[in-house]
């Protein structure tokens, strides 16, 4: 009989322990900040924190800008399959070469990406400061300039934000944060620029030539309207895309 009572007590203790464990796990899931506060999660370095926080936002914005001809809000556009696509070169006249609407595409896109991520950058830096403060650091943030550069095979975002954090063991200061996103937009827009030159000269382009020369490239040409051509350039290896519209007509 004694033995039986002992087993019952043991069972009760196990049940109580199980309930407590489940409650703790549930609390940690409901309040993620608790995980860092009680040391379950290692505090990321400020550089890693910003890279993790911004990477997806940059990728999403770059994708959006890339499928809209390089503009976040395309000024002169064609609505095609529910997407607004920027005309890079345009003429409403028959038998006329198109007139360039965005001359320096690379610079324009760098500016567009920068404008599109400004809010995300501020959000991530504020989160960084808050996270460090919650872990007992004295943190200070000084906002600075954001520079986006399209480089071969990557997009580099440099943020000259000054972040200082200190605890008993000392003070650290970081003056420049860099986020790298792998993307072939640099290569794709240089081909887009060449296609635009062809359109100015002959009112069309030889997509076969580009695909023969750059075997990693796929050029798709669609004609949704009378004279508009929509180009989709795809890197076959990475599946990065750049889509733009041109309306040109020339016998030159």
């Amino acid at each position, binding site marked *: 009989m004694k033995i039986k009572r002992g087993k019952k007590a043991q069972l009760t203790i196990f049940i109580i322990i199980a309930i407590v464990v489940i409650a703790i796990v549930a609390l940690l899931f409901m309040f993620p900040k608790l995980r860092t506060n009680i040391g379950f999660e290692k505090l990321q370095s400020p550089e890693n924190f910003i890279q993790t926080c911004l990477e997806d936002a940059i990728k999403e914005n770059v994708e959006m800008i890339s499928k809209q001809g390089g503009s976040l809000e395309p*000024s*002169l*556009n064609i609505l095609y399959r529910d997407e607004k696509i920027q*005309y890079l*070169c*345009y*003429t*409403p*006249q028959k*038998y*006329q*070469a*198109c*007139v*360039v*609407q*965005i*001359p*320096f595409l*690379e*610079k*324009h896109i760098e500016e567009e990406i920068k404008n599109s991520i400004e809010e995300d950058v501020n959000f991530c830096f504020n989160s960084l400061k808050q996270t460090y403060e919650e872990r007992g650091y004295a943190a200070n943030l000084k906002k600075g300039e954001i520079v986006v*550069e399209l*480089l*071969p095979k990557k997009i580099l975002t440099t943020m000259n934000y000054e972040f200082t954090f200190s605890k008993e063991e000392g003070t650290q200061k970081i003056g420049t944060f860099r986020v790298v996103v792998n993307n072939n937009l*640099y290569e794709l827009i240089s081909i887009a*620029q060449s296609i635009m*030159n062809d359109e*100015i000269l002959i*009112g*069309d382009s030889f*997509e*076969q030539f580009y*695909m*023969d020369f750059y*075997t990693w490239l*796929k050029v*798709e*040409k*669609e*004609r949704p*309207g*009378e*004279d508009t051509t929509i180009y989709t350039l795809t890197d*076959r290896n990475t599946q990065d895309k750049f889509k733009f519209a041109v309306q040109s007509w020339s*016998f030159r």
Partner: protein
Amino acid sequence: MKNKIIIFLSVIFLVATLNFISAQGIEYPQCCPLANNGAQCVAVPASECASNFAPTSCDSVPSCQAGVCVNIQSGECIENTPKIVCENSGGLFKTEAIHNIPECQRGCCILGQDTIFSTEIACKEAASKEGLNFNFREDITTSNACLGLSLTDEEGACIIKTDFETKCKRTTGKECGAEDSESGFVDLLENYVSGTSLTTEFFQGKLCTADELKTDCTKSEKTTCYKDDVYYLDTCGNRANAFNSAKYNTPLNSDYWTYIQNPSDICAPVTGGSSSAKTCGNCDYSSSTKCRSPQAEDPKPTNQQANFENICGDLKCKYKGKTYQNTESWCAQMSGTLWEENGPGIKLDLDGNYLISKDKMFNPEKYNLPGSEYVTQECYEGEVLNVQCKGQREQVCKQYEQQGRTRAVCEINNAESCTTLKNPTKDKCNALDDCYWLSGSSPIIGGNKDEGAVWSITKEELEKE
């Protein structure tokens, strides 16, 4: 006399009417710096213009004059850009022809092992972006000559020595001997102490596996893709020669593991779907093969070859029962366009002459019907891509055979040449590539006389009336 006056007045009236019709077609010159749809410096009517409409051509409106837009920082030169668009983008506007603008003169930009045909400023910009040194050759004035330069710097085995270790890297002599190459080799070294001596020695045309070099790089069954071909990798991760399974077991002092060889000297080019893909890595893009990881349509290895991770993949396309080679193109079967026994599209010889008689080709009841559009199709790496020709048959698909391959292009259908013909006759009309003299009884004209299509009326005809 009275009759003559009536005829004279009628002619004047007719000429005036024709001019009016013609003027409506051509449209008056107009220029709009900013159209309602956001377009800048385009010829649209005043009703579609958001600001400063001018009843003159854009060349006469200073802010809309088209010229070359120069980006002084990046070296880009963009033609046919309106002045206002250029200046708003931070560019320098020039009205001279592009070949007369010093900043736009292009030469050969040598960047590491690559070359780009660009302006000097663009060359500097690219070098700084890619972190490479550059050499700008303004004496090379064509893109082909520039491209050729990238192939002249030969590769070989670069032996990197420190006091503690010896490593080998397949690279160019230029890179191996370059003063700044040290930083690139440090990653290869396991025990490098910064500031200690590091020497390099270059063996042109040799592989790192060469027995005589006494490196720790030896052959491996691993392969990699490089410039479309399949290559063996050595145990140090360097490219050896193009894959040839029959030569794998040759000793390390054999030519195959000692000298860099051209893939075409190693085995015959592999054509799409050929079983030689299992044994040879000399892929041939023009014969529909390219290095890739094996896919369903590729030949299967006969026995379980180790590391069979790359193969000369079959890039041919199968479409509607026909097989097309990679990069071949053809006119698509589109209803209402020209569709002859030998397949759709307008067939040409290599001189651009029609292979089908005009009487067959211009049958107005069967072909080129209202609403019909031409489409070309292209085989690219196993995938069929559609390229629509311009709508309203402003372009038509023309197809020709070249070196046993079908090629199709969307070509401009120059209908203007028919309507601008002076005193048209059947012969004059039919002599033009894109024109055909339709009989007046043709249903497409709706007439019932066996006369030519009328684009103008002569004085004699008027007198008959």
